[in-house]
């Protein structure tokens, strides 16, 4: 950082080699890191805390923290007639998306790893591109293409699941591709072949069981991006098949506390599902999930 200062300090001759990073205790730098980490954690956690506090608070207008706490908003949120149907639909859409995206990409990537490694950049490009595709653009183009014969899909849950699958491709691709790479898919497959297995038998019996953690990670990422999603739901199905995201948005003006109770509930559902799935499919730190 301050080249001139450190140069003049050591004189003309290079000083003794400075200790390499990490092994050297540099307390001042570590303190700066901790300050940075603290600020980051606060920025990320405070709004989440605000959401939870607000859902339990009764009267939080003129004070820093709520003055009274109540469970009544949670109770009232869940007693809403639309609560069960919209949350069920959102869950169904997410599960359908997980099934479809895994069914599309797992066999494809398996074949690429075993027989067609050179086509991988092509599939990778197609799978990762939706990451940057604005959901509004995707929604409009699907409306244009599927609101007129021969295939009318707008207003149906099928189009919603198909559109969710498009936006899920990047996450699923990354997770499955990383897992297939990590287990030496080609080696395992060829070993099975020399033992006389067919083409798909090793896929079901050897590859799938070995990449179950990648499959779990992919499912979680899909669940967390699609459950309670607003934009595609609002454009593609709207009131015809109202999901929790669309309902929660219209609910805010009249029932803000209940809305955030539902927001907190979605968050809890998604992340407790994560813990359950990760527990079932082997221990892997949460930090690896996103990188997958």
């Amino acid at each position: 950082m301050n080249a001139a200062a450190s140069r003049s300090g050591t004189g003309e001759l290079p000083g003794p080699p400075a200790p390499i990073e990490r092994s050297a205790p540099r307390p001042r730098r570590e303190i700066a890191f901790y300050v940075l980490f603290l600020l980051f954690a606060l920025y990320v956690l405070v709004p989440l805390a605000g959401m939870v506090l607000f859902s339990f608070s009764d009267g939080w207008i003129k004070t820093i923290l709520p003055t009274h706490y109540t469970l009544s908003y949670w109770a009232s949120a869940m007693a809403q007639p639309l609560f069960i149907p919209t949350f069920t639909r959102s869950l169904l859409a997410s599960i359908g998306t997980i099934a479809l995206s895994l069914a599309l990409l797992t066999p494809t990537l398996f074949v690429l790893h075993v027989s067609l490694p050179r086509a991988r950049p092509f599939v990778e490009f197609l799978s990762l591109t939706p990451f940057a595709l604005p959901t509004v653009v995707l929604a409009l183009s699907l409306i244009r293409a599927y609101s007129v014969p021969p295939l009318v899909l707008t207003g149906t849950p099928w189009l919603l699941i198909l559109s969710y699958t498009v936006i899920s491709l990047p996450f699923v691709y990354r997770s499955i591709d990383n897992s297939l790479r990590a287990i030496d898919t080609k080696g395992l497959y060829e070993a099975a072949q020399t033992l006389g297995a067919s083409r798909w038998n090793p896929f079901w019996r050897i590859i799938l069981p070995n990449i179950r953690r990648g499959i779990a990670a992919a499912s979680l990422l899909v669940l967390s991006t699609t459950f309670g999603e607003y934009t595609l739901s609002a454009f593609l199905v709207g009131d015809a098949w109202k999901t929790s995201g669309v309902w929660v948005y219209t609910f805010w003006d009249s029932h803000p506390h209940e809305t955030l109770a539902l927001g907190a509930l979605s968050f809890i559902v998604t992340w407790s599902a994560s813990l359950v799935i990760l527990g079932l499919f082997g221990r892997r730190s949460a930090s690896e999930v996103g990188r997958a």
Partner: protein
Amino acid sequence: MASDGGWAAHVIQRLRSNLGVGLALTPFVVFIVLFEAIPIVVLLLGSVGWFKEPTLKYLTAVFAHPVYRKSVTNTILVSAISGVIGATVGTAIGYALTATRHDRLRGTLMALANVTANSGGITLAFSFITIVGVTGGLTIALKVIGIDLYSFFTLYSFTGLVVVYVYFQVPLMIVLTLPAFSALRLEWREASTSLGGTTADFWRRVGIPILAPAIIAGAVLLFASGMGAFATALALMGGQANVMTTQVSVLRQGEVIFDPSQADALATVLLVFVAVAVVAYHLIQGRTLRWLKR
């Protein structure tokens, strides 16, 4: 992809020789064609009025009509500002996470970054209202110590949008750039030091040149994600947020103005902006990959 020019011919040859492989790839390719390629082509055609009467008036209106033009400049401004802030802060935290000696803290914060990197949306915007809205906890807390936040800031504005976008862009930047930071080899630092280089020399001659492509590419992707953000803007500002995504929604779903062709044209322009950003991302990222692959 460009460097691997032979893949197309190779694919065709292999498909011919191995029908089973071809069949296995068919569902994926059909899905992409049906639900990504065809819809986008239809959208592009719609934006030039192909289905009624071919015209460029919708596309030119995006830049000529004062409201749409304003939405274009607003979108670019908000995404650029939040992208630069997100990239700068994300890079600093990404570096700190790589260099810190506290391994458990690193794990926890990485998990936090992964959880929040995709968190944009309705609920996030509402959560911010409870903290820095007019009667939010932090707003009141600042008032208690004598700072009137709303005399110079309001969450329901473009500044507010930046504050909320940064929430998911910083974690996204951390997730995007961490691999590049991890690729900075300790030996390079050692080599630089043993040749007499200072910390500053190392960063100027080795560190920055290796990291720069990853950082710039990450910033470009944040910019693209900001351009596409819709639900967050809608929840904070309703129809008042004049950004391209909310304009599209007003034109497509509004009861007052309903003009699907104009909506298509705005969406097309948005798509072109994002496509340019993505191409830039790939070009810049190509430089980083050279180092990561070693």
